[in-house]
């Protein structure tokens, strides 16, 4: 099947599984231990234990943004019954700053996939105003589209994803997990 689009988000099926097509308007930079995240690059669980530094662009400090990090391949990409697993949710991030200036609604949870190669997707939304966001009761089966709908976040302004698998690789059979 020829893939016409050159957007890595489309090719990696992030647009489709998690998001709808959007226009990227705000630059976002995610850094784990001074290694930048680029679309589709691979990280190990040991490298993503602590929350990354996130720098968002934009001009006006008055614009507030919401950052969501989800795993659409939980617990396994061939059977994503827990899609999407919410890893991080920060709201009220002023433009040009980072999540440390925002309101952490759901704390960062380090991704630890047990089977297969998972994608971790960071999505940035622009907020219309300062709004009270309620944390979901559980992390699994989060729906980014519905969340955006619920809080009137509109379409995303930026998205980024990376791949992650078990520390020792996903190949072979494991008798004891």
């Amino acid at each position, binding site marked *: 099947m020829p*893939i016409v689009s*050159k*957007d*890595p*988000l489309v*090719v*990696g*099926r992030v647009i489709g599984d998690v998001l709808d097509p959007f226009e990227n308007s705000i630059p976002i930079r995610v850094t784990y231990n001074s290694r930048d995240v*680029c*679309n*589709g*690059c691979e990280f190990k669980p040991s490298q993503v234990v602590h929350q990354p530094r996130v720098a968002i662009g934009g001009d006006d400090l008055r614009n507030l943004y919401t950052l969501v990090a989800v795993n659409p391949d939980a617990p396994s*990409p*061939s*059977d994503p019954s827990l899609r999407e697993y919410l890893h991080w949710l920060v709201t009220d991030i002023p433009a040009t700053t980072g999540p440390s200036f925002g309101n952490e609604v759901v704390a960062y949870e380090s991704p630890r996939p047990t089977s*297969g*190669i998972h994608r971790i997707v960071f999505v940035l939304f622009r907020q219309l105003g300062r709004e009270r966001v309620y944390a979901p009761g559980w992390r699994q089966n989060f729906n980014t589209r519905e969340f955006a709908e619920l809080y009137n976040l509109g379409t995303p302004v930026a998205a980024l994803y990376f*791949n992650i698998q078990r520390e020792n690789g996903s190949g072979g059979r494991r008798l004891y997990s």
Partner: protein
Amino acid sequence: MASSKIVTTNTDLPRDSSSSSSPLSSAAATSSSSSSYFLLHDQNLHYYSSSSMVMDDLLNSIYTTATTTTSHPSNPSSSPPPPPKTVDDVWKDMILTHSHRDSPHHHNHHPFEEMTLEAFLSKNGAVTDDDLTAVPSLHNHHPVAHQFPPVPAVEGSSSSAAEPFANGIDAAVAAGVPAPSSSSGGGGGGGGGGGGGGAAAVAKGKRRAVEEPVDKATLQKQRRMIKNRESAARSRERKQAYTTDLESNVQQLEIENARLLSEEVPLIIYILLHIIA
């Protein structure tokens, strides 16, 4: 009292025997209707054909005790001749299969019980081919209609990666034996055919038992192959996504580099001029 007891336990029966009728007629009626109900029931007939005799014996025994002491609250399950457990099991299965017809979302609870039951029965030759095809196709498919699934649907289900093991086997069984479409009406015919086809059932059951492992292995291989294909497709996607991302990054960096270089030269000249002059 005894007759009313019989009535309450026989709630599934199509005719409701009123407690006002005499114990004699009601007991006889219920026993006869219960046995006919067994025969008309289109699932797992012949399992119950043997136990319907048990039922009749049971009911007769209750009836005899009822005539002697009408006020004796004899609990049917505690009556001696057949072991009470069998009756309860029979009733449980009956109710299960009855609710099975009514509510399709009970499907998920049954497949394993009924599959192993059928496997056990087919090995013992107690069940004919018709019954074997009748039941697996029923809980093999989620649609409410108790029709037989068309073969493409069976293949479709077996090709889906997340299909549970039991359904896959049943699909093979159902696909292997041509599914007669007269299942719902096949109750009466099955009853007649069951007795006559007993001997044939033994041979066919044994043959199927031999064929099943082969089908199991093939199905497993198929499933594994499909999963592998999906995994390979995902892997290719990943690779391509990474490559396109790298390419776009490279492009952007080249542009910026060119821009910076082009700006660098005038700057150097400007500085030199200021140093010299």
